[in-house]
């Protein structure tokens, strides 16, 4: 039986982190790692009460830094399959099984695709354009096209997770992961998933300005 470890990077998610963990546990995902990226609210305390494997950054490093810590921690804890899962209730726990099917059937990586018609209610048209734009930039810079490169729901087998070399710190990590998948010639499957958008989760995502910052950081990563 494969050990599935869920990695949740969290920064100031006191409103939702408890519910996210409870939803996962209801579906028998009991190996949960939360990486608190030096939150200033009660994210750490709430996650601790829920009884998960908790890691804390002493300085805020961003999504990339938190994912890097989380994936390393998951491998250290003996994970066979690692799932990255957002802390803002954007993801449906039931979608994990859909990704799992492909990982158990010879794929190395599965990424949730939020842009499938009918599954992205509440996703603003500008956000959709932004994601497409970043997909295109990721393709231009790293030669890998993915329909939803910015998706936070990803699944890796342990061999794939070992090969990832994540160096970016912030939101640009999503594109860097695509680059790493291509660089390591990992077998990738994009799986349609539901995107649950509330005012809260919308406030947590990328803005247009973030998007420009991400592009700039990706250009730098290409050069460095």
């Amino acid at each position: 039986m494969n050990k599935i470890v869920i990695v949740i990077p969290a920064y100031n998610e006191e409103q939702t982190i408890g519910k996210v963990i409870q939803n996962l546990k209801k579906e028998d995902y009991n190996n949960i790692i939360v990486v608190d990226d030096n939150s200033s609210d009660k994210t750490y305390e709430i996650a601790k009460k829920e009884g998960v494997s908790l890691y804390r950054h002493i300085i805020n490093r961003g999504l990339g830094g938190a994912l890097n810590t989380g994936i390393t921690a998951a491998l250290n804890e003996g994970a066979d399959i690692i799932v990255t899962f957002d802390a803002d209730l954007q993801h449906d726990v039931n979608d994990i099984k859909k990704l799992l099917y492909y990982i158990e059937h010879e794929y190395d990586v599965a990424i949730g695709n939020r842009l499938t018609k009918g599954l992205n209610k509440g996703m603003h048209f500008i956000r959709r354009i932004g994601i497409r734009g970043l997909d295109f930039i990721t393709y231009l810079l790293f030669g890998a096209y993915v329909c939803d490169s910015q998706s936070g729901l990803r699944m890796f087998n342990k061999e794939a997770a070992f090969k990832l070399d994540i160096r970016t710190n912030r939101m640009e990590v999503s594109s860097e992961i695509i680059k790493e998948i291509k660089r390591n010639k990992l077998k990738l499957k994009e799986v349609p998933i539901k995107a649950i958008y509330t005012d809260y989760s919308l406030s947590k995502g990328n803005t247009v300005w973030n998007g420009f910052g991400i592009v700039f950081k990706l250009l730098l990563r290409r050069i460095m």
Partner: protein
Amino acid sequence: MVLCIQIFCIIIGFFSIIMVLYRFKIKLLTYGEFSLWCIFLILLCILIVFPELINKIIILFGISRGVDLFFYFALMLIFYLIFKIYLKIEKIEQEITIIVKEIALEKKKK
């Protein structure tokens, strides 16, 4: 006729080349950086000794005044240096993340 200021500038240029050579020897500069600095300093010395060459160069670039050429080069140099500094900062950020990650993992082990 060579002016005193030109002699002074050539001496400064000469010592600058020595400094660059020394920094290269103690591995503070890469081969590429060393080469660029040497070319720059040698060209500077030549232009100090033969200032009339500047007029021929600015005609080549289609610029009307020598001082404009100086500002264009200065601007390019500033952009280059800012870019280098930015790259350095990014590298330092990556190194900080490695440290923060190791601390988080170590704390959990305890």
